[in-house]
């Protein structure tokens, strides 16, 4: 069991540096889980799938999951609180300053540079996950069909994951 303080610190840092929402948090979390050896990448990907298919923000679901895995129910609560706090504090500070900084050119330029970096981070997470998820031609077919279903038919992620689960049971 990992110390709750260590868990709080790890998730606070993740919350503090995750620009761009759930998938960005995911890429950070994936790095952190791998670095600290909290769980296998397969288990992590399973959690991502469940977080996609249950109510609530994906990042909160993931934090609850990883927190529980490493520290039980206290761990789940600590991780969720820690990942939420930086954004909440910054939002309130922003509200106090009446968005003045947000409109400034310099601030906007910084955001224009770091958003593409976030795209790279998410792509790297997809790459890592892909290495353990796409293991043979069957999983490659499921992945390819999924892309088509999302792009052409705008299939809801929940339906997609349910369909992929059935496909997995039939083909593997």
């Amino acid at each position: 069991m990992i110390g709750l303080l260590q868990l709080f610190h790890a998730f606070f840092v993740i919350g503090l540096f995750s620009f761009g929402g759930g998938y960005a948090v995911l890429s950070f979390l994936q790095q952190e889980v791998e670095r600290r050896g909290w769980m296998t990448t397969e288990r992590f990907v399973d959690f991502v799938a469940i977080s996609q298919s249950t109510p609530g923000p994906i990042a909160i679901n993931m934090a609850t999951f990883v927190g529980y895995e490493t520290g039980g129910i206290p761990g789940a609560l600590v991780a969720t609180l820690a990942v939420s706090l930086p954004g909440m504090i910054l939002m309130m500070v922003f509200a106090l300053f009446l968005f003045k900084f947000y409109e400034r050119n310099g601030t906007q330029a910084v955001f224009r540079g770091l958003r593409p970096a976030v795209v790279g981070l998410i792509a790297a997470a997809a790459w890592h996950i892909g290495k353990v998820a796409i293991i043979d031609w069957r999983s490659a077919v499921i992945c390819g069909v999924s892309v088509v279903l999302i792009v052409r038919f705008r299939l809801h992620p929940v339906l997609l994951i349910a369909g992929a689960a059935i496909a997995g049971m039939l083909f593997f």
Partner: protein
Amino acid sequence: MAEQTVNKPKLSELFCIFAHVSAITIGGGYVMFPLMKREVVDTRGWITDEEMVDYYALGQSIPGIIAMNTATLVGYRKRGIPGAICSAAGMAAPSILAILAIVLFLMPWIDHPLVQQAFFGIRAAVVAIMLMAVWQVGSKSARSLPKALIAVGAFAAITALHLHPVILIIAGGLLGWVLFRKGDQR
């Protein structure tokens, strides 16, 4: 259209409304925006349409979780710091309950062969969902050549050099300040 309103929702009301939005959102931030707008703007008139869009944009630009950030700001706007805390707690509550229920009831079965087979399929679909997220965010945020290069550079730095993501976020921000300060609008 709900115009400027002076109503002051109860703290318990803030908690319940955001818990409701969270509970009916499956699939993250993109799905949540219209649902939150319906409750907070259209039904209750707590904030205006424009405020909702601005708050959401800010929620995306600030580190952290978009839905939590937006809920915090709406709560703060209506009832100050206690309102912000109640709104954020409401947003997190359904998540925590749902995940703990799954951990307690699904995890004992996770090593069953049929469950494992299902997850083989599910993992492949998750990769597809991640690729779509790359495409969606990338087609908005990495349109120009310098921005595409930042994205590719960040990808390479993580996968080949194993740099920490924080370093790349800071580097991206610095590069943005250097490159786009003089008026790139895209």
